[in-house]
């Protein structure tokens, strides 16, 4: 069996490279436990904001054929409850516990400082944050602010597939102190029902994830890989072991899955890993570093 251990940094060692992406089950300690028990090597909480957000009305999501569209409106209990939730997760997971990545979101640097200070109380293994805009100056400012306030906790900047010149932006984030890059967040999209003459989602538009996102994500990840030296947590449309291989070949050190839980249930973690192992065996690879970024070698 190939060696799947995944060393993201001196502090962060994952038993395999598969991670639960943010926003999937991430508002429930017991669902995070379920993900951990189902094979996730790390779990990410739902993006949390300073205050509770109820989220949007239904319909908030749909399978439109080539992928999913969702707009749940950042439903989350607020950062204080999230700290509680992370602790509850650790306690309930007991010996099944895996590292937890706390995802935060704010509109401006000041809020990010406050959020970082608060989420730090839960001592997450990584603080991941979603940027409101991809202006390079702002990216640097927010990253530096989170970096300073996170103390010893490593931080990851999560970039969206719509971030133009994503490689350069990732580089800015690295220079401003990011320990990892998480990529990608989905692209905006809209599903219209012609008979209703209305967008399907209550909010009009949403974000496109799942299979149709994969080639876009692979391009982003390979662009980032060429620009940075820090590890990339890759995601976007991974639902099989081969997808996972492609993402690592493009330059990801670990791989997040989200929509795959719709296609394959919580079993997705083990199924994808088994398929990935088949691939590694059939091609004679022994460990992850052999294939990470290999398309460029």
């Amino acid at each position, binding site marked *: 069996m190939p060696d799947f251990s995944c060393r993201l940094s001196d502090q962060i060692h994952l038993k395999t490279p598969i991670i639960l992406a943010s*926003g*999937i*089950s*991430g*508002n*429930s300690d*017991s*669902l995070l*436990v*379920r*993900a*951990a*028990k*189902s094979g996730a090597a790390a779990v990410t909480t739902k993006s949390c904001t300073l205050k509770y957000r109820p*989220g949007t*009305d*239904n*319909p*908030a*999501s*749909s*399978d*439109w*054929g*080539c992928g*999913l569209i*969702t707009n*749940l409106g950042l*439903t989350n209990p607020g950062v204080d409850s999230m700290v509680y939730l992370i602790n509850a997760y650790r306690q*309930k997971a007991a010996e*099944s516990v895996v590292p937890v990545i706390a995802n935060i979101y704010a509109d401006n640097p000041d809020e990010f400082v406050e959020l970082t200070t608060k989420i730090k109380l839960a001592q997450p293994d990584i603080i991941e944050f979603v940027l409101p805009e991809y202006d390079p100056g702002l990216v640097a400012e927010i990253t530096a602010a989170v970096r300073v306030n996170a103390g010893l906790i490593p931080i990851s900047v999560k970039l969206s597939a719509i971030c133009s010149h994503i490689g350069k932006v990732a580089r800015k984030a690295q220079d401003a102190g990011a320990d990892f890059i998480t990529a990608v967040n989905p692209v905006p999209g809209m*599903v219209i*029902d012609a*008979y*209703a*003459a*209305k967008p*399907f989602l*209550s909010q009009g538009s949403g974000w496109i994830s799942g*299979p149709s996102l994969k080639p876009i994500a692979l391009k982003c990840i390979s662009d980032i890989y060429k620009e940075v030296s820090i590890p990339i947590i890759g995601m976007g449309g991974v*639902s*099989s*072991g*081969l997808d996972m291989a492609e993402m690592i070949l493009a330059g990801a050190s670990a791989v997040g899955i*989200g*929509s*795959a*839980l*719709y*296609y*394959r*249930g*919580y*079993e997705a973690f083990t*199924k994808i890993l088994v*398929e990935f192992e*088949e*691939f590694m065996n059939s091609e004679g690879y022994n460990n992850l570093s052999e294939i990470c970024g290999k398309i460029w070698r």
Partner: protein
Amino acid sequence: MEKPFSMEEKKSRVFTVDKVRIENDTTHSLIMKEPMASEPGQFILIWIPGLGEKPFSVAGSNPLMITIADVGKVSGQIDRYQPGDRLWIRGPFGQGYQPYGKDALLVGGGYGASPLLYLAETLIKKGINVHVFLGARSANLLILVDEFEKIPVKLHITTNDGTRGIQGFVTVPLEETIQQLSDVQDACVYACGPKKMLYGIDALCERYGIPRQLSWEAIMRCGMGLCGNCKIEMPDTWEEPVNKPGSKKAWLVCKDGPTSFTK
């Protein structure tokens, strides 16, 4: 390696109301012009453009039928629908009831009876012996009684206020019937209704060691097993399947359910 999913469109499709059947003061059934391949116990999502989307049990598949209690925004709007009106429906979703054993005991509380007529018909076709237990607070809240009277089932009715059938809870005639079964292991209780009723029935079944399939409700958002909003905790009697570790404390109604099966 095969792709782990098929690229079929799961978007809402337009359905047209063919007939409306009044079940009681607040409940009516819509019979559509179009069919939808589905199993009893599965659910669909009905979208009223501009208003919202809510889950409903499949109450018949060919043509598609749904039984709706008018309790709020979406159900209230649907309540006004007439033949020729259109609804947007996607589905079916979730795990349906699985025919099991030679005796079937179907228990419906309030509009929880809605998927049971369809289930009864399916079970009868398989040669299974069907008992139906309908319970409600009062006679005017019972549904589908006339329909059940038309098919070969043994029908038991209870109302809390005694306005129809036996006075009391459905669990009373249910327990009597369980006691009369020749082999509880070769029978199954199928229940749909409020959470409290399901917990009660589960405990009763556990006492007699009879298999049961319970259909749960929760507030759904994504309906896709992603957001976690429909998470419920299963009763202690429910054993965690080995392929779903951790699901006992975190069971998704939209994806793991809506029906659970305890043998």
